[in-house]
């Protein structure tokens, strides 16, 4: 017997079947991060926007939300996964060829269409670089549509930087990539200090510029202050929020922040949308 419940297109709880086609180590050590390249089986098109997420499903363990780490202009889906709990521990044990479930794309992405003609600056910290990577890849792939691109990114140590090879390569190609680490290390040629301090040093011009920031809550908070001091208005600043998520479709209430469902109305928010809330996002 077939019903709407049997069709992933009509049953939003039913994942698409997908295969892991590549696994890259981003960060090793006690809090490892791996990037998984995933290809949908039995389905060719998967239209999404930068900033949207998916629930990755491992039956027996559950589902976890990840923001899509690559641009829709690039093939397949990439997710960068910090090993932190039940689902992610299992994912880190998986190999190329293993099957996972994908529900998505979920939520609201970045309004990249709206930003055409603007300068773009991404300000990221740690694994918060994930949605920003999707943005800069998109902007690079549609270079003529956008003004200057600046990528500001930092981590605790050089070993904790994600997408290192890609970023060094972009820097070599002449892109404006500003890297930092929190504490001095031998042979580190770039900025030493916190991301917001690096931003202060770079002093981006707010004129016709969109700033997107993502990282640990404390970094976001300080970055917001720096951007405001530099003259950025709240409607020029975007971020993505993170909450515990379960259904991913704006029903279950887990990620509810006041009247807003982060999974459905976000995860991307413009700052003036958040500053209207009573509670601190």
């Amino acid at each position, binding site marked *: 017997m077939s019903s709407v419940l049997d069709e992933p297109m009509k049953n*939003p*709880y039913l994942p698409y079947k997908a295969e892991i086609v590549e696994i890259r180590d981003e960060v090793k050590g006690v809090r490892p991060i791996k990037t998984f390249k995933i290809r949908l089986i039995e389905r060719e098109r998967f239209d999404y926007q930068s900033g949207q997420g998916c629930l990755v499903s491992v039956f027996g363990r559950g589902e976890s939300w990840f923001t899509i780490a690559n641009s829709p202009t690039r093939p397949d889906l990439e997710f960068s996964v910090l090993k932190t709990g039940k689902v992610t521990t299992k994912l880190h044990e998986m190999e190329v060829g293993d099957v996972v479930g994908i529900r998505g794309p979920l939520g609201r992405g970045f309004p990249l269409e709206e930003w055409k003609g603007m300068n773009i600056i991404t300000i990221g910290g740690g694994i918060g670089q994930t949605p920003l990577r999707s943005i800069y890849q998109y902007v690079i792939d549609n270079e003529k549509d956008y003004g200057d691109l600046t990528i500001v990114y930092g981590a605790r140590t050089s070993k904790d930087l994600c997408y290192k090879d890609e970023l060094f390569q972009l820097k070599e190609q002449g892109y404006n990539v500003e890297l930092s680490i929190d504490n001095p290390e031998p042979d580190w040629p770039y900025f030493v200090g916190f991301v917001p301090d690096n931003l202060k040093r770079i002093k981006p011009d707010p004129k016709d510029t969109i700033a997107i920031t993502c990282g640990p809550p404390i970094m976001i908070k300080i970055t917001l202050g720096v951007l405001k001091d530099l003259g950025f208005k709240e409607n020029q600043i975007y971020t993505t929020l993170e909450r515990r998520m379960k259904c991913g479709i704006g029903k279950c209430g887990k990620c509810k922040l006041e009247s807003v469902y982060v999974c459905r109305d976000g995860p991307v928010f413009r700052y003036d949308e958040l500053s209207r809330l009573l509670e601190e996002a």
Partner: protein
Amino acid sequence: MKVYEGNFLKDVVAKLLDDGYRVYAPVKEKNYHVFKVVENADEVDFDYINTRRSPKDVTFPENEVLMKYGEWVEEIPAQADKTAIVGIRPCDIQGLRLMDRVFLEDITDPYYEAKRKNLLVVGYACNEAGDYCFCTSVGLSPFKSDYADIIVTELGDKQVVEIRSEKGEAVASKFDLSDASDEDVSRKKELEQKVLSSFVRSVNTENLKERMAEAFNSDYWKEVAENCVSCGICTYLCPTCFCFDIFDDGELKGVRIRAWDSCQFPLHTLESSSHNPRREKWQRLRNRFYDKFYYMLVRKGEFYCVGCGRCIAACPVGIDIAEVINNIPSGV
């Protein structure tokens, strides 16, 4: 307006059972009533003010299997067809309507929809307000509902049967109903007056949104939560609390279920990183009151409280949503 000489509710249970419906109706457990699937009209007892549990589990069960899995999805459970709920009170019908708005608006929840579209709703107007009832404060009527398929009013010797939908008409047409006489109409009006005057509790909703916006950071919420124990009673009994968790039961083979969750549970919002946006119990309790009277008002344009009073009657430590709302401090 039609009348039925006799007990329409009981007879409709019998008829629906004959017609193969799965019927939920109020049943008396030791000291309280609950909606249960009945097999016989004699199990039903309509002598009640409100059921202990809300009937939300008819469309939103406490546990629901979303899919069975092994290595991959193996089976999606079939949904029950023709279901009826008989004897549901107007506040709970509003609860159903508010649940419909959560699960059917925007992205449709297909599991909910499958149950909802096969559901016949036979309402039962109230003849008196309970000590905890305050539906009239949230804009509802204890004897009206346009959202039911049929709504029945007890007149003692007969029942007034109001048909509110085609679905209701199809069922009611199988009964011998006569047009209400002028006397029936005036008896019903009198009864309604009597019901309205029987309310002993109210909530002041005047400028409530502004009052709540102003009081958000008040220490009042810490005081209110002082003896809260962070249990799930208020949310589990509530006809409009819809939070759920999704949970895999079985490592290699099992079921992915959704199960009721509660924003009052300490770790409801706990993230894997150990960050918890609502770590303190006063934040969680405040969240519930704001959700009912502020957040959902912003999102859906109406209060998500139907004034059934269940959470007040059952709170082990005496937290009272009506009093909490009435005493929100101003000028803070």
